[in-house]
């Protein structure tokens, strides 16, 4: 995508500007101020409130948090339950067998949290240190300097109508310039995507791969919740060709966080990840947990899985990548928060070596690769790709790699998700043994209701289809328009107009439903869907996810 010529706007200046108020971004901001309080630091965040776009399991390892905020356990975030028991289950359609808990899934000493609530708890601690945090502002574009390096970001205009014209409420987005721009956008950040292309940061890396994570927070009937219980399942409702499984994390106050991950390298063009999630809740072993309960909140987010092999170069002139924007989640542990915090702190420590007028991105990448962040990824690098040959081979590879601590002299290559599809009609969808289901939410539209996602409908559509003709021709024939199935929010629909003045068969984009998960940007087979930021403040309003 070529860089647009954007005329200059009002500029404010900071030493460091951080894009994204997730765990990496906030940890970086806090650490920077701890080490060099005289640096001016801003964090910009597209959600209307810190945590509103954050969705994660999550069972976190507290180590990096202990380093960042030594006293945090005395004033913990609002949702924080000590993990107490681990269970891994293998499911068949009707049965469930307990498997031995692998070492990566031993969670003693870890905490079940709401990552969104944790970020909302971190933000004021950053503000106390005089970090300026600006929720409700989307970094829409990069501002490049004359030397071609990153000079800062351009905030998106607000109050623009569907055709791109200013409304009554129009406000032009300002520019924030900084010596260093830290990209902490999380998985498949849109600015990160462009920077990787522009600076060829992935020239020496394998293709990045992803999963889709969907989650619901439930209030279950009294007595059913066992606070501290951490459960994972594999097997049904997935067939052995699709990587993934479920999680159930039991919190306090009768709340259970339930979710489902499916690797986006699935080949079946007809596969429906959201449906798989809903099927899981109906498994005879776990169904009772949800009967009589109510959904409090729900949502979805893509998960970065490529790890060691896919990590791009994380530095470029004027900018660095941290957290899952870089891609450091540990897949077998299903944990990325501790890595995110570590990378944020590392970035801060690297930058703080120099004074304000001499901040350098150069050298960060080497530091990251030499750090525990990378060694942790290296250890598990072969586990996820081991599943390319199916569930059973994957489990065997995982066992071998675990026992040998990842020291075998081999690194399995990765394959891109968007090219993994089999052709419609050629790929045989297996009978996965899915059932009639009754538990809420009845469908994606009902699920989206609990994400409380909101976009002013009178604004430019933020999902750009770069070659729209493909949708009604090639894509229909070859893959049957999988976007209508992989989007967890039913944004994409193929509709048929009957009228003479109608458009016949066409792709309808219900942009207002979007929960900013980025799955479409990843899994569209032609890579013609380009997700960009909508107006700042728009998107989900996740509560405690």
């Amino acid at each position: 995508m070529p860089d647009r010529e954007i005329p200059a706007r009002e500029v404010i200046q900071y030493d460091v500007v951080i894009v994204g108020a997730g765990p990496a971004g906030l940890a970086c901001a806090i650490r920077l101020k701890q080490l060099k309080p005289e640096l001016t630091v801003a964090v910009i965040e597209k959600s209307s409130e810190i945590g509103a776009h954050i969705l994660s399991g999550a069972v976190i390892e507290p180590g990096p948090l202990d380093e960042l905020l030594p006293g945090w356990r005395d004033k913990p975030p609002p949702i924080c339950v000590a993990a107490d028991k681990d269970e891994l289950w293998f499911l068949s359609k009707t049965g469930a067998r307990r498997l031995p808990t692998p070492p990566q899934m031993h969670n003693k000493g870890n905490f079940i949290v709401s990552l969104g609530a944790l970020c909302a708890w971190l933000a004021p601690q950053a503000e106390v240190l005089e970090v300026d945090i600006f929720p409700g502002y989307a970094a829409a574009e990069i501002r490049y300097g004359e030397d071609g390096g990153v000079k800062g970001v351009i905030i998106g205009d607000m109050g623009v109508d569907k055709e791109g014209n200013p409304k009554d409420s129009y406000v032009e987005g300002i520019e924030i310039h900084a010596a260093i721009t830290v990209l902490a956008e999380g998985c498949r950040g849109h600015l990160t995507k462009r920077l990787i292309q522009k600076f060829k940061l992935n020239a020496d890396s394998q293709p990045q791969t992803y999963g889709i994570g969907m989650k619901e927070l439930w209030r279950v009937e009294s007595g059913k919740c066992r606070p501290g219980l951490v459960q994972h399942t594999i097997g049904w409702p997935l067939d052995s060709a699709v990587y993934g499984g479920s999680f159930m994390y039991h919190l306090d106050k009768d709340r259970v966080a339930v979710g489902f991950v499916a690797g986006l390298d699935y080949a079946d063009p007809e596969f429906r990840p959201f449906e798989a999630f809903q099927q899981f809740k109906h498994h005879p072993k776990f169904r009772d947990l949800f009967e009589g309960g109510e959904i409090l909140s729900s949502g979805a987010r893509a998960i970065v899985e490529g790890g060691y092999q896919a990590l791009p170069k994380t530095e470029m002139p004027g900018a660095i990548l941290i957290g899952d924007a870089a891609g450091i989640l540990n897949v077998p542990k299903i944990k990325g928060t501790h890595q995110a915090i570590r990378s944020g702190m590392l970035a801060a420590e690297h930058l703080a070596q120099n004074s304000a007028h001499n901040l350098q991105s150069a050298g960060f990448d080497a530091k990251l690769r030499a750090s525990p962040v990378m060694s942790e990824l290296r250890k598990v690098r072969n586990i996820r790709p081991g599943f390319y040959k199916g569930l059973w081979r994957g489990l065997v590879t995982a066992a071998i790699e675990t026992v040998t601590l990842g020291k075998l002299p081999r690194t399995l290559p990765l394959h891109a998700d968007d090219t993994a599809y089999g052709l419609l009609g050629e790929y045989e969808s297996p009978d996965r043994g899915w059932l009639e289901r009754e538990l809420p939410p009845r469908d994606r539209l009902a699920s989206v209701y609990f994400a409380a996602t909101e976009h002013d409908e009178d604004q430019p559509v933020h999902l750009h289809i770069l070659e729209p003709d493909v949708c009604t021709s090639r894509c229909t024939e070859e893959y049957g328009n999988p976007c209508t199935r992989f989007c967890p929010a039913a944004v994409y629909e193929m509709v048929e107009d009957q009228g003479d003045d109608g458009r016949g068969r066409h792709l309808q984009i219900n942009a207002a439903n979007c929960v900013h998960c980025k799955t479409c940007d990843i899994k569209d087979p032609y890579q013609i869907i380009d997700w960009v930021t909508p107006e700042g403040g728009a998107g989900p309003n996740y509560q405690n996810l």
Partner: protein
Amino acid sequence: MKILVGIKRVVDYNVRIRVRPDGSGVDTDGVKMSINPFDEIALEEALRIKEAGNAEEVILVSIGGEACQQQLRTGLAMGADRAIQVQADSHIQPLTAARALLKVVEKEEPGLVILGKQAIDDDNNQTGQMLAALWNRPQATFASKLQLDGDKATVTREVDGGLETIEIDLPAVVTTDLRLNQPRFVKLPDIMKAKRKPLDTISLEELGVSPENDIKIGQHEPPPQRSRGIMVEDAAQLLKELRNRGLI
């Protein structure tokens, strides 16, 4: 002239409302709070009047705990000149709010008071009218258009029957309806500027106001669930059913 704008900190309109299982109230634990949407419209109108040169100062008032300072700062970032927080520890009912606002009005002597027509939490739709009564001045509720003309104003109001126009002498109270305007977004640098604008705190007691004749709030429950009704076979049966129920 000065314009006084009242704003209230309420649960954000996007939040999915849930009644606490014990019925003691609505679950507001950790939920997002915002300026009441109708109050934002009120502030926007005041700012436009000032920008048109018809007012020199826009003053914000909010009655509540320390947390409502967050909303006052947002209002200052939108462009208000200064803010007053009337410190009140518990939930204030409209009559008390009106009495407190009257005290502020008596001190500040604004030419116009603009309030949102109702708060989206209590949905009372009373405070503006009550203030006007206690102040002995005109009220123009559900305004969808406001035109100033010296010491008078012409207000178009959204009423059930259509659009009603009245003329009022200033000073007066106007309450806003949805279609009055679309509030501006805050420009990021203005957030920084707002931190330096004056925000004063005064307690309800210092104003000489205390809650009286408060309505007692009892149990809360979720709305009745609609359920499946009857199925009919064809248009004839449908019409028969509707006629029986007196609906057509």
